[in-house]
């Protein structure tokens, strides 16, 4: 059963999800336009092993969480937008919501201001039709994707801020 789902998803990953992720990446970058302080945009399809691991998760009573994982798992495509400053998170969120329709929106707040962690938003958005390459049937594409907008507070993030000040996308 696991092998069957793994094979089905692996084919979907290669022929449907990866091409859509590439188109969606370009679409998000285009919609963000010249918004300032965006460090990077990345869009990825969930890898087959991670999908299968999630598909077989169970609730606290031991029942399967997903009866139809191919339809129910909403983060088969995940996008992430990293910004430099806390106030940019909301600027980007508003911009994204101009162009995408959400069915979920959660604020991500670190336990404390002094903790290394993330401040941002988690959204589940309808996948726009134009993000589906023409050779892929619309019914084969996932209906939604997950998007996170984050400001990185880690040391790595601080280093990126310092180096990105000189990069063309930081303006």
């Amino acid at each position, binding site marked *: 059963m696991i092998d069957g789902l793994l094979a089905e998803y692996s084919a979907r990953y290669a022929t449907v999800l990866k091409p859509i992720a590439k188109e969606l990446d370009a679409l998000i970058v285009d919609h963000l336009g010249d918004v300032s302080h965006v460090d990077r945009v990345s869009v990825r399809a969930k890898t087959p092993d991670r999908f299968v691991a999630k598909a077989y998760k169970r609730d606290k009573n031991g029942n399967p969480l997903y009866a139809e994982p191919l339809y129910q798992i909403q983060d088969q495509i995940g996008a992430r937008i990293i910004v430099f400053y806390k106030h940019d998170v909301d600027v980007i969120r508003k911009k994204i919501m*101009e162009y995408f329709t959400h069915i*979920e929106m959660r604020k991500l707040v670190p336990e404390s201001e002094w903790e290394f962690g993330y401040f941002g938003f988690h959204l589940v958005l*309808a996948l726009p039709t134009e993000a589906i390459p023409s050779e892929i049937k619309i019914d084969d594409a996932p209906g939604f994707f997950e998007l996170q907008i984050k400001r990185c507070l880690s040391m790595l993030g601080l280093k990126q801020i310092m180096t990105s000040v000189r990069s063309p996308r930081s303006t």
Partner: protein
Amino acid sequence: MPITRIHSFLVKPSKNIAIQSTKGGTSVPLEGKVFDLLAGLYDKAETDCKIDIVFRPNEAGEQVNATRTMLMRYAESRSIATARLIAARLAAVTTRRSGFGLLFVVAGDHLKKRLMLSRFPADEGMIVEEKADEDMDVRFIERVFMKNAHAYKSVVYEGPLEEHAFWSGKAVDKQVDVKELSDYWIGDFLESKLKTTPSAGTKRFAVAFRDAIRGAADLPLKQDLLSAAQLVRGQDGHTISPQNVVQGMGLSGEAVNALTQAMRREEVMKETFQFDKAVFDQHVAYRSVELSNGAMLTADNADFDTIFRQRQVDDQTAPQVEGETPSSPLTEFTTVGRIVNQRLKSSLR
């Protein structure tokens, strides 16, 4: 036949009425004329319902939607009790203006699962019965349904109607213009919104216009598209689909093809969204610069600085222009291209 259950309810206008009750309802037999009509709608629902919608999250931004939960419960039990809750919800958002309606809740096992809701409005009519003595009995009735079987509202949901899945559907309103559909049927009853936002839909349409205009091989086609782009701006605030708009304009087949090809996918020509003129103008804009010597330079705003190279010239060497106001520096514009058209115009504007 894939239809497994049909329930029907008379839905009374009950918006703003404190005590609401939806009683009764019936199971419709899976044969006969009513069934045949509904089966016809059910079979073509996917192509008939062209407006992509998604359920709204709750105010906390969670994936919780009361109407969706009702539909899921119905899909699971297919009982008249759960169907009645759907009818009660429709009644609670129905105004006197919308009037009485006949709601059908149709469930089936088409491929995965398909759930269709259709509302037919009440109409007025006469019943005439001939009597044996050549007399007639004429009666006026107010609750005639399906007098026009093509005037209805409908929505269809496909796929596993289960948690996490089933957040989108397709709707149609054959009674009124699309604007009212989004308010009463989509917004109030289904607690949903259009899948395509005003900015996304308008930008896509505008970019298609811009690319089609740029790529137009001959001048008449370019002019057709430019005129159409100007006319489209009049749709500000209206809920449209590009296909309906261009059909309404009587745009040439060549121009429609050019626009369709400029879209990333043909299907987006049919997607419905609220048109936003301000967004359209951001993407289909022409910059026109008037110079003190009488010259007028016009080009696509995005490419203006590439098409016309400009540099400030030294006031000592530049030709002086009579009557020139020195409010801006003397600027030299240069461009290189082939003449494809030139016209005399009676007026500059």
